[in-house]
């Protein structure tokens, strides 16, 4: 069944690509592929964290605010010390995310506040904090070091006119680590156990609360890293718009990729397919010449179609 969910996402992806390519062959040209490759890394990084949370039967809607808070902090630090190394900057972004995610995890795992409530609260709180730090300002183009912007322009691999940007490399490293964590490490498997049946996992001697705190901390860390990637890709960061509403796109990508919001199932491969599908749709719409006004409508329709296919699949499996 798990495989069929990923298969479903893959089928949707192929349908979208083929349909759009027939309508306008420009989708397969280098420029379009480049924009897809640039569009998906941020989504992948955020979605991998969300996947872990969803597998543990939680939800984290605060990630867009965490992105803004971390990106803003890193951006302001770069403004103050333009010579700061990119590695240090990324580490600080990651650290901010870890802190934000740990607070979410503590509220959910230890204080037993329902995930949707706790992260709705921190969604407001973190975004408010970002505003307070920004003091009416934002991160401007001049604040972002050139080398950081190059991450989304340059890449280690060039196939003709198609460039694989460093941003995507980072996202693929995250994917690889997440795969090792969920498929090969005991702790990763425990998260699936917690999500399938928390009570049974507890009886089995697992530290359920601690595992929950861990998943939210990882999710926060990746959202923090997302803040740095956002700076690289857009070259500026506005505390009110950065990452706002992104939580729903990210959740959509994970769900389309086969994660079950009822916990216990989801895969890294599915997340990768889900993110690529949304990226392909995004670029296909503009290539086919449909106004960007229609993007939200198509996202909604895709989520519902994926859900519908899901419903049919489970019905057949239980019948």
């Amino acid at each position: 069944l798990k495989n069929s969910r990923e298969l479903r996402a893959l089928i949707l992806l192929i349908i979208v690509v083929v349909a759009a390519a027939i309508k306008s062959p420009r989708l397969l040209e280098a420029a379009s592929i480049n924009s897809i490759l640039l569009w998906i890394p941020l989504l992948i990084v955020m979605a991998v964290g969300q996947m872990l949370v969803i597998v543990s039967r939680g939800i984290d809607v605060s990630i867009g605010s965490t992105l803004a808070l971390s990106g803003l902090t890193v951006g302001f630090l770069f403004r103050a010390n333009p010579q700061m190394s990119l590695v240090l900057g990324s580490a600080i972004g990651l650290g901010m995310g870890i802190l934000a995610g740990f607070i979410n995890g503590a509220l959910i795992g230890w204080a037993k506040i329902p995930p949707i409530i706790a992260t709705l609260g921190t969604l407001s709180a973190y975004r408010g904090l970002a505003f307070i730090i920004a003091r009416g300002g934002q991160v401007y183009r001049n604040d972002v070091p050139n080398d950081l912007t190059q991450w989304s322009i340059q890449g280690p691999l060039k196939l003709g006119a198609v460039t694989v940007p460093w941003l995507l490399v980072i996202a693929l490293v995250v994917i690889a680590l997440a795969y090792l964590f969920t498929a090969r490490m005991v702790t990763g498997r425990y998260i699936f156990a917690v999500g399938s049946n928390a009570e049974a996992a507890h009886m089995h001697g697992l530290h359920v609360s601690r595992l929950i705190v861990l998943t939210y901390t990882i999710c926060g860390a990746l959202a923090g890293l997302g803040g740095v990637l956002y700076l690289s890709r857009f070259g500026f960061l506005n505390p009110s718009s950065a990452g706002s509403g992104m939580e729903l796109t990210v959740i959509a990508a994970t769900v389309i990729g086969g994660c079950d919001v009822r916990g216990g199932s989801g895969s890294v491969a599915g997340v990768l397919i889900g993110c690529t599908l949304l990226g392909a749709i995004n670029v296909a719409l503009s290539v086919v010449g449909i106004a960007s006004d229609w993007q939200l409508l198509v996202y909604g329709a895709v989520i519902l179609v994926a859900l519908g296919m899901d419903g049919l699949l489970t019905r057949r499996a239980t019948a």
Partner: protein
Amino acid sequence: MRKLLTTPEAITVVLLIIAFFVGIVESKYFLDPFYLLDQTAMNAEAGMLVLGMTLVIVCGEIDLSVASNLALSGCIVAKLIAAGLPAPVAILAGIVIGATLGGFNGLLVAYANLPSFLVSLGTWALYRGIAQALMGAESTMLPKSYSGIDAKFIPGTGIPIPLGILLILAAAIGLLLHRSVFGRWIFAIGSNDQAARYSAVPYQGVKLLVFIISGALAGGGGALMDSRLGVARYDLAQGMELTVITATVLGGASIYGGRGTIAGSVLALMLMVIISSGLGLANVPADYQLAIIGTILIVAVGLNAISKRFAAR
């Protein structure tokens, strides 16, 4: 007494009283009844969504699409009025459209057995997406005859009409949830879906109707917001779903279903309005208000969890 103090609403009321006194101390304008009525009337649409959300959450479901529903209904009402339809017909059409959009969620949740979080996440994007495709970046102005309902008062009182509408609806939905068989069914389904099913509660129909009512309130809210703002755009009420869910949960409704009251939800929305307007008067920038409301939500729910643990001892 002890029982009263551990009800979820008690914490909201206590916070409301504290916020009220802080407001009085911080600003001499705060006690002006016109100011308070005006601020509350400005949030009448959110109030209408809160009424529907309470039904949905008590039923054990969630509806993320209400604000998108409001925006789409509001845009269609504005288009209809601009096309020359008489206002009452257009308002009725808005309510019917809202009910239909809500009913679509309800069908998928009750009859296709899909989780409401995902269904309404999909329609959250779909409904606002349709509104955006319909309107583009344009805004539709409403004629003078239709706009400005918030500046009109119920004759003989100082109560603005939107607030009056909200109070009447709150009384009606309150009676429905707390004094009718239908309301008992909602609680039964929210407390224990399976037990309700075995007790011959028509759970699919009840769930569908709950989503339809919530949608109808959103549709009516769209028509109201059109009149209050005098203009309709696809991004009406953007992000309002979070305010509405926050208020409902702050008012003591359990996100797992089976618990919640209309009075608690409305009081909690009042609390949020008083905090944000009080902070505004005290010259606290809007940025801080967001952080404060988020913190209050966590603290209130945390206190609830703690008080429940003590009560269970």
